[in-house]
């Protein structure tokens, strides 16, 4: 009898344990965002990029940002230092050494990766950020309160803050040319790229194409497609001829960036735990510090 009880106990505890694990993994899967299977993305083939920086010019022109004439972008001296996208430039191209051929350095375009599970969307306390069905991660300037949580949360450190006017906060980053695309146009950078190092298409299709290229040209590409799995998958994915770490791609796990923080937040707030715990704590404190009648003690 006792043995059977033990077995029953083990069984039931296993079931409960499994349930708990199931719960926790579900929580870590990040927000249940509506990822459209037709969401669009861009495949950046860094081996095809020629570093002409026409994308930088096209981006600024499309977003009404001040820019020098296109001819000035031929200046390659800007590659001497690493640049990050900021409020003046939503995308930049950086140059990296090519160990296989020092005369043919790699150039890599940097911009918002348009994550499938964006940390900026998760972290935004006023809900200004959103992942659209067309794949773009966009934000509403009118809602933004300038807390800059998105800047901290982004695993790629993309969102930039425009400091010019103190009372009118303005977060800036690549918006995947949401307005242009609604009008049936291509993203400005994709349209202008002379070598079509930027391929615009359905994200799932691009992953297939990218994988196919690495298989067909193993001497040209390293294995793997950056962004296929990283932080749960990104809308912009990359192919490279050298290890991605040599191109300063961050080493990120495959779990969605918001996963951990959300599971903590959601876990704490599940089943009214914090208010109940708070009242219980307060109750306990009251009970402990209650001024008990002295007579009872003497008894």
């Amino acid at each position, binding site marked *: 009898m006792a043995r059977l009880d033990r077995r029953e106990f083990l069984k039931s505890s296993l079931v409960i344990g499994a349930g708990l694990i199931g719960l926790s993994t579900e929580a870590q899967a990040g927000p249940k965002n509506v990822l459209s299977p037709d969401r669009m993305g861009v495949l950046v083939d860094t081996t095809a990029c020629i570093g002409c920086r026409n994308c930088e010019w096209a981006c600024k022109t499309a977003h009404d940002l001040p820019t020098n004439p296109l001819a000035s972008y031929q200046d390659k001296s800007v590659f001497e230092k690493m640049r990050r996208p900021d409020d003046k430039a939503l995308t930049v191209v950086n140059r990296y050494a090519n160990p296989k051929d020092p005369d043919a350095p790699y150039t890599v375009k940097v911009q918002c990766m348009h994550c499938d599970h964006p940390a900026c969307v998760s972290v935004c306390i006023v809900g200004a950020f959103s992942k659209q069905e067309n794949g773009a991660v966009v934000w509403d300037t009118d809602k933004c309160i300038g807390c800059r949580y998105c800047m901290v949360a982004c695993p790629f450190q993309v969102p930039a803050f425009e400091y010019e006017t103190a009372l009118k906060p303005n977060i800036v980053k690549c918006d995947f040319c949401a307005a242009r695309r609604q009008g049936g146009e291509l993203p400005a950078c994709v349209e202008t790229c002379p*070598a079509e190092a930027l391929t615009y298409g359905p994200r799932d299709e691009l992953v297939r*194409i990218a994988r196919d290229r690495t298989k067909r040209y193993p001497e040209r590409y390293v294995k793997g497609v950056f962004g296929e799995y990283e932080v749960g998958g990104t809308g912009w994915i990359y192919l490279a001829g050298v290890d991605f770490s040599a191109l300063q791609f961050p080493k990120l796990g495959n779990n969605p960036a918001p996963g951990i923080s959300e599971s903590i937040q959601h876990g704490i707030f599940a089943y009214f735990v914090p208010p109940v715990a708070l009242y219980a704590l307060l109750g306990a404190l009251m009970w402990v510090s209650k001024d008990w009648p002295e007579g009872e003690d003497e008894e």
Partner: protein
Amino acid sequence: MRILCALLLSLAVADGAWGQAEVPPKAPASVVHCRKCHTSDAPTKESPSLVKCPRGNTKGVHTAAEAPPSITLGQPGGNYEPVEFSHKAHAEMSEMGGGCYQCHHYDQGGRIQKCSECHSTERARADVGKPDLRGALHRLCVDCHREWGHTTDCTTCHGDKPLPQALSSRRVVYKTSYPEGETVTFLHEEHVTRFGLKCADCHRQQSCASCHDPKKKGEGALPLEDHQSCSACHANDECSRCHSTKVLDTFDHGQSTGWIHNRFHAKAECQRCHTTVGRFTKIDTDCESCHPGWRQKFSHEKVGFVFDDTHVDLECESCHADSAFATPPGCADCHDDRSYPKDKPGRPVGAAGKK
């Protein structure tokens, strides 16, 4: 059901055949049989059922001579001006490398396909598996040009920059193990300019960089491992023709053959006189051998000198002894007190007269 399927299939095949009939007459459908590339009789774009590419076997179907001299790439009105692509020059250069197939990579023999037949002219398109036309062209051009030019500047092709020239040597000096003359001087410039040799006549399987890359200067020089490259023309020559103890100077027609190329002859193409095909053989130095009946037609005025009445009826040899027309004439045969050019038997005309 099977019969119906077969009927449909045959209809589809027939339809395909009709489609092929519209191909320009230059490429009759019989040149390449479908089965050469496809394992099925009804290949589709989605499942083309291609055999392993037999590209290697079909090389040499086309030559650079068929290439159009130049084609315009791009449209006016863009951010950059269209590029006038010197197609023939590139085709001729490609004969030193991978041939037409370096760029026309999916041609299976027969008609050469235009790039735009596979690569879409639209960037916004459904099939993004292969680059669009603009992307494909830029990748092709830039891959080679950056290799030897070490730049990806747009103005390399877009703009009025002069065309890059090959880093051609004037002469190449080889050291050999031949004891009686270990130095072989190959007069590269002479062979190209005077003897009309094409680059591809000698240079094979070379990269663009070996002739165009300033950093790889000299790498384009052919190794002198055997005599093959030279023997086509020099098969019957003595060893000493090429092997010497010292570095030879540029070819001098007067020094080597005793026939000085001066004035009019200096401007003449070699083939004007050396009419034998292949290599140049010694020809008769008598003027008559190239200019039959010249004495009757010749007017001395053409060389800038008109005789006075005393000299006009003289024979040529009276002054130009031994038909040595290149050397200045003497007066001593007839006159004791006269000498040329101090004393003249007439007056200079034309350019010579103005001096």
